[in-house]
């Protein structure tokens, strides 16, 4: 894959550096990893897409419980199939990089957790989130009463305006109070 570096022109590389939180090495590495996922004939196309199925085979995403959501959130595909172009892929890595701001990270975290894409985290979203984290197996799953209790706890903690859902600013407020978030919301290639 020695040619990968030359595939990225200097201008686009500097543009990527300017618009993302990634360094040159990270961008080159990302490009290398991304072109590995492409078919042979697609490698020269600038806006070739990699399907979600292939993206989530990356070892960094493979065992992530949110892998599908992450792809969907960062995908700019018209068909909403979660396929990523190289720029989408860079976006993903940039948001999950070390130097991304808390604002960016919490914004994307909110979108990842907002399973139905309606702009707020309602009870259904929260339940899905908890299930996603604890796993779907029966022994690990919370019982329905526990879930109810948990969700009401969550809402009590974070729903400041008491409208029954957690909106972005409320979510960001919660995030700003949990310092571990920044270090754990991180995916490095």
């Amino acid at each position: 894959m020695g040619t990968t570096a030359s595939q990225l022109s200097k201008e686009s590389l500097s543009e990527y550096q300017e618009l993302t939180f990634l360094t040159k090495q990270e961008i080159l590495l990302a490009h290398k990893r991304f072109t590995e996922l492409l078919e042979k004939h697609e490698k020269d196309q600038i806006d070739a897409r990699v399907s979600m199925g292939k993206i989530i085979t990356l070892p960094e995403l493979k065992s992530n419980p949110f892998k599908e959501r992450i792809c969907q959130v960062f995908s700019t595909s018209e068909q909403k199939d979660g396929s990523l172009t190289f720029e989408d892929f860079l976006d993903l890595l940039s948001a999950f990089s070390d130097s991304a701001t808390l604002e960016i990270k919490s914004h994307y975290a909110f979108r990842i957790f907002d399973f139905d894409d309606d702009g707020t985290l309602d009870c259904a979203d929260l339940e899905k989130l908890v299930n996603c984290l604890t796993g779907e197996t029966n022994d690990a799953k919370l019982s329905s009463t526990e879930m109810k209790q948990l969700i009401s706890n969550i809402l009590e903690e974070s729903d400041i305006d008491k409208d029954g859902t957690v909106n972005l600013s409320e979510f960001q407020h919660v995030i700003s109070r949990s310092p571990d978030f920044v270090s754990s919301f991180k995916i490095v290639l």
Partner: protein
Amino acid sequence: MTSYRNGGFFNPAYHDTETLEIDRRASSKTHHTNPYDNQDPTWWGDRASNDDAIGRVPQGGWQEESWRGRENIPMDAISIRPRSPPRHHGPNHSISGMDSEYNQSRSIPLPSSSGNMTMRWRGIAMRRMSMFPDADHTQTAFTEDAIWNEMQNEQQNLLEELAALSTRDRIKAIRDLPMSFKEKKHIRKELELQSSRKSRQFTCLADCSEKLSLFSRKCGYHVKSAKQTLELWQGAMKSIGGKFGTSVLTYFVFLKWLLMFNIFSFLVNFGFVTIPLLVYKHTPNISQNVNNVPQNVTFRGLEILTGVGYFKYTVMYYGSYSNGALVGYNMQLAYFFTIAVYMVLCGISLIYSMSVNFKNNYVLADSASNSAWQLLCTWDFSVTNEKAVKQRRNNLCVQLKESLSETAQQERLTVSEKLKHYGIHFGCWLLSTSLAFGCAAGIYFLCKYEHKVLLQTTNTANWSLLDEAKTLLVPFVVSLINLVIPLFYSLFNKFEHYSTHRKQIYALLIRNVFLKMSILSVLCYYWMNKVPAKDPCWESTVGQSLYRLVLFDFLFLMLGSFFGEFLSNVIGTKLIPRMGVPEFDVARNVLELIYSQTLAWIGIYFSPLLPAMQILKFLILFYLKKVSLTHNCQPPRRSGRAAQMQTIFIFLLFFPFFVGALSIVAYTAWSLTPSEGCGPFRGLNNSFTAVDVWIDDLKNVTGSQWVIEIYSNVILSEIFYFLITLIILVIIYILWQVTNGRKELIRRLRQQIVNEGKDKSFLLERLQDLQKSLPNKTTKQKKQKGSMKQHSDDHSSGDQSNSNAMVQALLARQQLEEEEKRYSIGGVPVPSEMSNSSPLMQAMLARQLADQENEDQYPMRDENPSSSSALAQAMAARNRVEDEENNQYDVFNRSSAVTQAMQARRRAEDTDDDMGDLPHPVSNVMMQVMQARQQAQEDDRIQWMTAPPQNPGPSGSSALIQAMLARQEAQNEYDDGY
């Protein structure tokens, strides 16, 4: 409500307020075609009769036009607020987004082909739409357009904001936008376009600065990527984080951080202290007292462990450095300042990272230890190992369940159980404290014993191997204590039951810190007080002790990871499966690191090259711990608060340990007499005197007067330090007060948010009630309206007797707006079934109707006032009369109702005079009324043949109303004729 309306109407300040600019959009309504042109002819008639009354204002229409424009304000304000936002946008843009509708002239051309007017119009429609979501479905496309338009507006606004920034800030701001790459690129392109357009005006200067900033940016990128290339252990860190998560990773990050300290220290010491000495040594004219390794001292091997013997004569220790005959290089100053600068830099770096960490992780952090969100949003995305993820999920599930049952558990504790817990805590604390004291005392006596034994053989050069080995006793015992006692402390956890995991960790930390501090303080006391008295070159002796301690600490760390992790793994997997695979104890391991770093700090004065050893030690330790971790340990069961723990570690490193080490070194430098026989400071009272001597020397140099001044007046004066302390205290007090104030502010703001939330839900409920009640009431009208497009629900009739005043007002306003539009467009009268509405409502509506008609009468006179209540009519008539007075007859200034009749009469007379073809005035009022009525009807028929048949005045109204109407009609006629 009425008073509010009046305020809105007659208060000129109200019309002039800038905040209400929004509603200038109302002026755009005239450009819209009315789809209901030919509707409801009966209403036309009603309108037409009224219009005569209004149509008497030939001028002043413009005035009222602007009135009307502003009149809409409250309506729009109301309709905007409760709408549920379709999307989320940044707090900055939501407000300015609206303004931008009016700043179109400045904005960048957009792909949108629709003009400003339609855009504004759609904005209104959307708000209306979102207020009444169950309106006509044909609006959907309309709403989408509106949303799209608003997005465009927001984008423009953003672009403007960004364009105002400097290039560097702009790039940062663009990068910080939570948008996709494509959108960012688009914005960047737009901005470039804009700036290139702008920068054509400025030429060379702008070009230069642009190039310069580009260059500096490029440099920044290069530095960043170079830094990343140099970053140590990237892959290793990633794999550790991928398997064990961030909390274990903190240990390795901490280790790396300490390694950086030591590398810096080594470079400084080696560069400024050791290299000059080495260079001097190898010059031909050697003075023997530097390289004074006695002939009979040879390297025997055990020195590597003990650090005595051969090592004593190398540059390893303080004793070998001398100020003797180094030409042109002041070793005293170099030695003193190197160490001082290093310690100060260490302190600053510690304080800085401590404060940053503290700010990020403690001040903002939630106090609740086990809150649900804490668990949910700290899912470690960096964990990539399949097994680790599974384990993490299970752990998280357990923790969630625990957090749910925790509160219940707390309450179940009885008094006796609580007492038992306190008793156990007390016992454990007592035991651990006494253990620490015991260890410290034991070490003190051991040191004394060692000294006694070693003093028997005065000449260290003649030590036998056994004598040399005896020196290893103290470090061995100290390291053993450091290894065993913390494990023992960990056992306490089995008996103690702390309510939270955090408290348990803190208790363990405090005990370990106490133990290590007491051991170190005993050792230091011994070194500072006992050793100098008996040893000719005591600094080197202390340096040797430190060397041994550092080395043994390293050996025992290795042993520790063997015993602590490997053995317990073997036991856990093979012998007693109940114990399970051990976890990596981050707290204990980090404390070990802190301890060994403290040894290195203390030793820097006595053995300047100790950091070199420390570097080696940490390098080996990193790989050792990594191997031990991956082979022996499992990921932690609890996702602890890694970030907070890190802050605590840095704090611990700073507070007892670094400060302790610093004070030891400072005490040595300021108060202890350096040994006579060796070292750079021989012959001085204390090391600091070297600076005094230097200053004295400076007195002979001309032009250095200011240095001496500063030295004697600032460094040596107590008043300076006194003042500094005072100022710092004052600043601390002020900041403390500010903090308290902010806390109070935060509390209040929170309360306010809660209140706003309540308000919001209340208003939403109201709105929903309204929406529910509206469609039922207006179905009849909807049918009449047919293909109504913009405002399906607006035209609710005034019969909501069951809703409260506010709702009524709201509806009335909507109605008004509706009417306005129709008037302005086609001059079609609006059906208004206000006969059965409440009087208040009627009054309000009527008033507005009247006002609108006022505005419209000048251009279009085909409107008739609809029948309304007496009050409304009276008001309208009054207004009109006043207008007429102002505009035409300045003589008529009377405004009372009684005089109006008179005025009307006079006017009628005037009309007669002017026109000659109108009936003569009748002195009797009633007569006049009757005649006027007839006239009006006749005139109508004559002048507007196309007008639909008129509806005669309201049949059910009282005689008074009739009179009023008639009078107005007469006036109308007059105007028309005129």
